[in-house]
């Protein structure tokens, strides 16, 4: 299979993203800063009322870094706004991809990866700024190993998210609108993935259960990997769960896609 077209799609997507300069330089960084400010005031009062210097294994400084990384991680994970997939189904623009001799999902995944790459650049810039201005918290050991394990988890989780979100998007073959489902998915990821509070603040039993679901691997787990908190066993166990979910979700997506195409009418054409 010749994939030379993939690099063209990738570079086209990068060009398109860079042309939205307001989002790149202002909109998204502003959103991250607002989230950090909220976390700052919330956790500041919690630390003060408890009189503690450490909570759930994080110092206040470390928690702030967590809250900087969580939205960045979420952005990398989400890549392209996949809702365009359901738009393609509603509007009939899916027909274009059915005619071209390329895989629809591969095409969309490359777009997704390109946007994740841009988000990764933002991630790198913002983390560097944090490290220069506030320094890296003492309890966190940022090493090459922790960086590489974090990246491996992040890339795998991004693929897992892409497949999961694609399944939700494909419901558009039958439902009139999947927007509310996508909002539910995002809220679930935000809450059960550790975007709202780190999952080690949850009861132990619930964290153990959650680790068998795809959600912790989307925010909480990769951040712990970047912080150097993951043991080798935890890393392998996590990668096994991610791999299993990728397999299960891929098979489900394949089935839903085939069934969906049977009812696709290309309306809007």
């Amino acid at each position, binding site marked *: 299979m010749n994939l030379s077209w993939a690099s*063209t799609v990738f570079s086209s997507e990068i060009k398109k993203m860079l042309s939205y300069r307001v989002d790149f330089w202002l909109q998204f960084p502003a959103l991250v800063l607002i989230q950090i400010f909220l976390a700052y005031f919330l956790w500041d009062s919690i630390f003060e009322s408890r009189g503690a210097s450490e909570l759930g294994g994080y110092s206040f400084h470390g928690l702030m870094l967590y809250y900087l990384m969580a939205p960045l991680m979420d952005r990398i994970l989400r890549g392209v706004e996949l809702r365009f997939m359901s738009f393609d189904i509603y509007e009939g623009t899916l027909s274009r991809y*059915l*005619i071209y*001799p*390329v895989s629809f999902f591969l095409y969309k995944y490359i777009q997704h990866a390109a946007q994740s790459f841009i988000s990764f650049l933002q991630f790198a810039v913002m983390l560097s700024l944090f490290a220069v201005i506030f320094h890296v918290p003492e309890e966190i050991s940022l090493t090459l190993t922790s960086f590489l394990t974090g990246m491996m988890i992040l890339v795998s989780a991004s693929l897992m998210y892409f497949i999961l979100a694609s399944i939700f998007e494909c419901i558009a073959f039958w439902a009139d609108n999947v927007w509310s489902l996508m909002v539910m998915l995002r809220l679930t990821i935000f809450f059960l993935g550790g975007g709202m509070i780190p999952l080690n603040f949850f009861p132990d039993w619930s964290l153990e259960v959650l680790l068998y679901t795809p959600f912790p691997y989307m925010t909480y787990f990769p951040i712990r990997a970047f912080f150097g908190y993951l043991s080798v066993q935890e890393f392998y166990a996590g990668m096994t769960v991610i791999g299993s979910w990728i397999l299960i979700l891929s098979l489900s997506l394949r089935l839903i896609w085939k069934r969906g195409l*049977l009812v696709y*009418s*290309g309306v*809007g054409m």
Partner: protein
Amino acid sequence: MIKVKNLKKTYRVHKKNPGMIGSVRSLFFRKWTEKHALKGVSLQVDEGEIVGLVGANGAGKTTLVKILAGIIHPSDGEAEVLGFTPFSRHTDFQKQIALIMGQKAQLWWDLPASDSFLLLREIYQTPKKDFQERLDYLIETLAVRDQMNIQIRRLSLGERMKMELIAALLHAPKVVFLDEPTIGLDLMAQKAIRDFILEYRKIHNPAMIITSHYMEDIERLCERIVIISEGDIIYDGSFRKIIMEYATHKVITARLDKNGAMKPSEFPPSLGEIIASDDDFIRAKVERNKVPEAASLILQKLPVIDLSIEEEEISNVIESILRKGME
């Protein structure tokens, strides 16, 4: 190249009563209805043939094209294009077909046409030399060189349509489906596109299926037309034959000197119907067998400066066939 046998397509459509009560009710109880878009269509199109698919809105033309392009799945029957079952969407099949939809942009809106074409070269794996030769030819023929580096979204409808044509034909497809290729275009652009399609056919000899509501498209491009009414083919034959068989009237047009003995309003109704008239002009729709008599009367009684006898408008002929087909 295209073989279709007893092809059927039924859509299941959700029905909802109007108003809030209807909306709430549809949350719990859904009513479905079946719409038979194709009821058993059979057809064959050979290499080099341009077939015009004609019919009212909702007759099933676009459904047939979508099935043949592999976009939608038929409910029953057989379809074969270039030896492939379209819906299996084999890569070798996809590389040899093109679909142009006048009402739907297929190019990437945020990219200039030149970038889109390069992407298509990669997607279709067209050799660079062939790609460049074809691109140069298409750009020159359609006169769009100056628009190549402008984002698709910023082009006019006519320019965009030309770019869509280029994009669809860069890989030199053996089967081309054109769904309303000239819709919304001005007369100049329509003519340019029609001329181009004929030129393309001369060089590449593909099988083409065209749907259009503009009878001039069909008249100029197709030797054969297929008329579809409510999911059934009611006519499949040569364009000339349809005129001979179904055009029961001819149109006589005469330009007159204003000082004639007979006024156009005095034209005997038994000879035909006056479609339009003025002091210096008369146009009458006359039965084929009465044409000599009517023409002779006009020449004798009216101060004729110029006279022409033409076939009835093809759209009227098709409309009458469709009406008969539906009765």
